[in-house]
C-alpha cells in the first residue's frame, strides 16, 4: 500500500515538475492571440456614493402610528434549500425595515412571519394558502422566484392579499390579470435592452457572445438582451444549472473571437464560466445581470472576475450608508442581491399601515395608489403591477468588490 502511494506521488511530481519547468522556460505568450477584439478594458469610474432621494419614505415613519398588535406582514419564499441565500438576503432586508418601524412606533408593533417554499413551485401552494388563511397577515413580500409566483398568484388574487415580489422578473407574470401582484423591480424586458445598450454603447463591444442558462430568468433575459444586441450578437450557447465544465462553450467563444460575453443566468454557473474563460486566455469583457451581481461571483471566479460588469434594475443599497450599516448591524453581513428590494417593499407596506390601512383591501388600495420615492427607486405601479420607469444600473468589479458605475441604458 505504502509503496503504491509513494510511486503515485513520485509520478505525479515528475509530471508536474517536467511541465512546469517547460512552461517556465518559455516566454509565456501572455496574450494568447486567440481572443480577438483586443483587451478593450473600458475604464468607467466607479461611483462612490449615489444620490439618495431626499424625501425617500423610510420605515420609521413619523413615529406616531398606531395599529392593533396583531397586524402582521409576511415573507413567503425560500428559507432553506439550494436557493436559500437569495431568500435570506430578502427577509433580512424586511426584518430590518420592520425593526426600524417598530422601534420608532411604540404604538404600532407590526409582527413578521416567514413561510418557507424552498423556491419550489410544487411546495409553494401550501405555505401561501396558509398565509392567506391567516387574517392577521395583511401584506406579503414575496415570492422571490418566477416559477413559484406563477403557481400561487391566483391564491393571493382569490384572497385579495397584496404581495410585492422583490425578485421575480419574468415579464409574463403581470399578464395574468392579477390585481394583487406588484413587482418591486424592473422585469427582464427592462433589463435586457438596457444591458444590450450598455454592452454595445459604453463598453463598445463589437462582437458579443450570449450564453444563457436554463432558468426562467436566464431564458427571458437572454431573449430581450439578444433582441437588443442586434447585429453585434455573433453567437449564442445554452448551459444547464449545475454545469461545471464550460470548455466546449469556451472554445466556441474563442474561435468566434468575441470581445464581450453576456451571461444570462446566476452566479453559480456564471462564476466558474468566467473563471474558465479567462484561464483559456479570453481578454474581453464579461457582462452579467443581477443574478450574477453577488459577492459569491467574485469568490468563485477568483481573479478572473476583474473583467466582469453587471447590470441590475436595482440601486446599489450598499452605497446608502445608513442602510448598509444598519443591515450589517442586524445581520452581521453585507447586504446581498435583493436585500434593498425587500427593505423597500416592506417599507411600502409599513407606510400603508402607518397611514391607517390596516386591513387587506385598504392596504391593497394603498399600494395601488402609491407614488413615492423609496430608498432605492421611485415606487409607482401601473395597473398591471409593473413599476413605472425603473432604472437599470451598471456595476463593475474593482479590487475584488462590486462597485456601481451609474445608471445605464437611458
Amino acid at each position: 500500500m505504502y509503496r503504491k502511494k509513494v510511486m503515485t506521488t513520485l509520478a505525479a511530481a515528475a509530471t508536474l515538475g517536467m511541465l512546469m519547468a517547460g512552461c517556465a522556460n518559455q516566454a509565456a505568450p501572455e496574450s494568447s492571440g486567440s481572443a480577438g477584439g483586443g483587451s478593450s478594458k473600458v475604464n468607467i469610474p466607479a461611483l462612490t456614493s449615489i444620490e439618495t432621494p431626499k424625501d425617500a419614505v423610510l420605515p420609521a415613519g413619523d413615529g406616531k402610528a398606531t395599529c392593533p398588535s396583531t397586524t402582521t406582514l409576511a415573507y413567503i419564499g425560500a428559507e432553506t434549500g439550494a436557493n436559500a441565500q437569495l431568500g435570506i438576503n430578502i427577509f433580512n432586508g424586511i426584518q430590518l425595515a420592520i425593526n426600524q418601524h417598530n422601534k420608532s412606533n411604540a404604538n404600532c408593533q407590526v409582527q413578521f412571519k416567514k413561510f418557507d417554499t424552498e423556491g419550489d413551485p410544487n411546495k409553494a401552494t401550501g405555505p401561501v394558502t396558509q398565509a392567506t388563511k391567516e387574517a392577521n397577515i395583511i401584506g406579503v413580500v414575496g415570492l422571490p422566484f418566477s416559477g413559484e409566483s406563477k403557481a400561487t398568484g391566483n391564491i393571493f388574487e382569490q384572497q385579495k392579499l397584496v404581495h410585492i415580489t422583490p425578485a421575480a422578473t419574468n415579464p409574463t407574470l403581470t399578464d395574468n390579470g392579477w390585481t394583487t401582484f406588484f413587482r418591486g423591480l424592473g422585469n427582464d424586458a427592462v433589463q435586457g435592452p438596457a444591458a444590450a445598450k450598455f454592452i454595445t454603447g459604453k463598453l463598445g463591444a463589437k462582437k458579443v457572445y450570449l450564453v444563457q442558462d436554463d432558468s426562467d430568468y436566464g431564458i427571458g433575459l437572454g431573449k430581450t438582451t439578444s433582441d437588443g444586441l442586434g447585429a453585434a450578437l455573433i453567437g449564442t450557447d445554452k448551459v444547464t444549472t449545475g454545469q461545471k465544465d464550460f470548455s466546449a462553450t469556451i472554445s466556441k467563444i474563442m474561435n468566434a473571437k468575441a470581445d464581450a460575453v453576456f451571461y444570462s443566468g446566476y452566479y453559480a454557473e456564471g462564476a466558474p464560466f468566467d473563471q474558465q474563460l479567462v484561464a483559456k486566455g479570453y481578454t474581453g469583457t464579461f457582462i452579467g445581470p443581477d443574478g450574477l451581481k453577488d459577492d459569491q461571483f467574485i469568490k468563485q471566479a477568483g481573479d478572473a472576475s476583474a473583467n466582469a460588469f453587471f447590470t441590475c434594475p436595482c440601486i446599489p443599497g450598499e452605497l446608502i450608508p445608513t442602510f448598509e450599516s444598519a443591515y450589517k448591524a442586524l445581520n452581521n453581513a453585507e447586504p446581498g442581491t435583493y436585500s434593498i428590494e425587500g427593505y423597500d417593499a416592506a417599507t411600502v407596506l409599513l407606510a400603508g399601515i402607518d397611514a391607517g390601512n390596516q386591513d387587506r383591501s385598504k392596504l391593497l388600495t394603498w399600494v395601488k395608489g402609491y407614488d413615492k420615492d423609496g430608498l432605492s427607486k421611485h415606487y409607482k405601479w401601473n395597473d398591471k403591477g409593473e413599476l413605472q420607469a425603473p432604472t437599470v444600473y451598471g456595476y463593475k468589479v474593482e479590487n475584488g468588490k462590486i462597485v456601481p458605475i451609474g445608471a445605464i441604458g437611458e
Partner: protein
Amino acid sequence: MIPTLLTLLPAASADDSSWITFDIPSLMQNFWSATFDGLTFGSIYALVALGYTLVYGVLNLINFAHSEVFIMGCYGVFFTLSFLGFGPSAPNLSVGSIIVNLLLALVVAICASALTAFLLERLAYKPLRKRNAPRLVFLITAIGASFTIQYTIFLVRGPNPEPALTMFKSRPIFEVFGTFIYDQQLIIVIAAVIMMVITERFISKSRTGRGIRAVAQDPDTATLMGVNKEKIIITTFVIGGILAGAAALFYVMKIPSGVQYNGGFILGIKAFAAAVLGGIGNVRGALLGGLLLGLIGNYGQILLGNSQWTDVVAFVVLVLVLLLRPEGILGTSLGRSKA
C-alpha cells in the same frame, strides 16, 4: 385520443421546429479544442471511474458513494491550499515551491479520499456483507451513504461552493492543429495516464493485485487459497480512494470553484457511466470509457449547438453501447482481464 395527439404534434412544434440542429461547421472549427478539453476532463472521469470499477470487480457493488469519496478529496485540496495561503489570484511562486505545495495538497486529498473510502466500507458495507445481504440492499445503502455525506457537508459548509483558489496560471505551451495546448491540460492527462498505468501494473503484478484479481474472480476459492478477503476488499476501497484523491486535485485545478457539497454527484454518475461504457470491472475499460465519455460529451454539445445536450448525448451513447455490447466496450471482469 392518441392518434389525435399525434396529428397535432407537428402543428404544435411548428413554431419551434428547430430544437435539434446539427452544426457541422462548428464541430469542424472546434474539433481539436473540443478533443483536448474532452481528453482532459475524460482523464478525470477515468480516474474516478477506476474506483467504481475496482469495487465493482471485487464486490459486484455500484459504490454510489464513491462520488463523495471524490468530493472529500476536493475538500482536502481546498483546505490544504487555503492553509498554504493560496487565493483567488495565481501566487507568484517559483516552479519548485508550486510543485511542493501541489504535492502537499495531493497527499492530503489522497488521505481524505482514502479515509472516506475506508470508513464507508467499514461502517456501511461491512455490516451488510457480514450478514450476506442481497445486492439491492447494498445499492440502497450506497445511495443513502452518498446522501448522508453530501448533506453533512451541506450543513457544515453551506450551499455555496468554496471560494476559488488558483494554483498556477495556466498557459498555452504549444500549438497543434491551430489549437493551443495548455500546460494544465497536459499535466492532467499525463499524470492521470501515469497513475492508471501504475494501477494496472500494480493489479497485474503485485501480490496484493493478484489477491484482488483472485477475489474478483471467485471470492470463495480465493479465500480457500489463503487470500484474506476482508483485507483485499478494504485495500480495493483504499486504492479507489487514492485515485479519487488524485482526480480531486486535477479537478480543483481545472475547476477551482467546483468544491461544493454536491459537486461530486453528477461527476460520479458520469464516471460510473464511463466505467460501464468501457466494461465495468476492467481497468483499461475505465480509461477508455472515461476518455470516450469526455470526448463524446464535448463533440455532442458542439454538434448539437448547446451544452445542455452534453449529458443527453453521453447517456444515449451509453445505452446504445450497452445494447450492442452488454459487457461494455472492452468487456467486464477484473479477474479475467490481463489488467
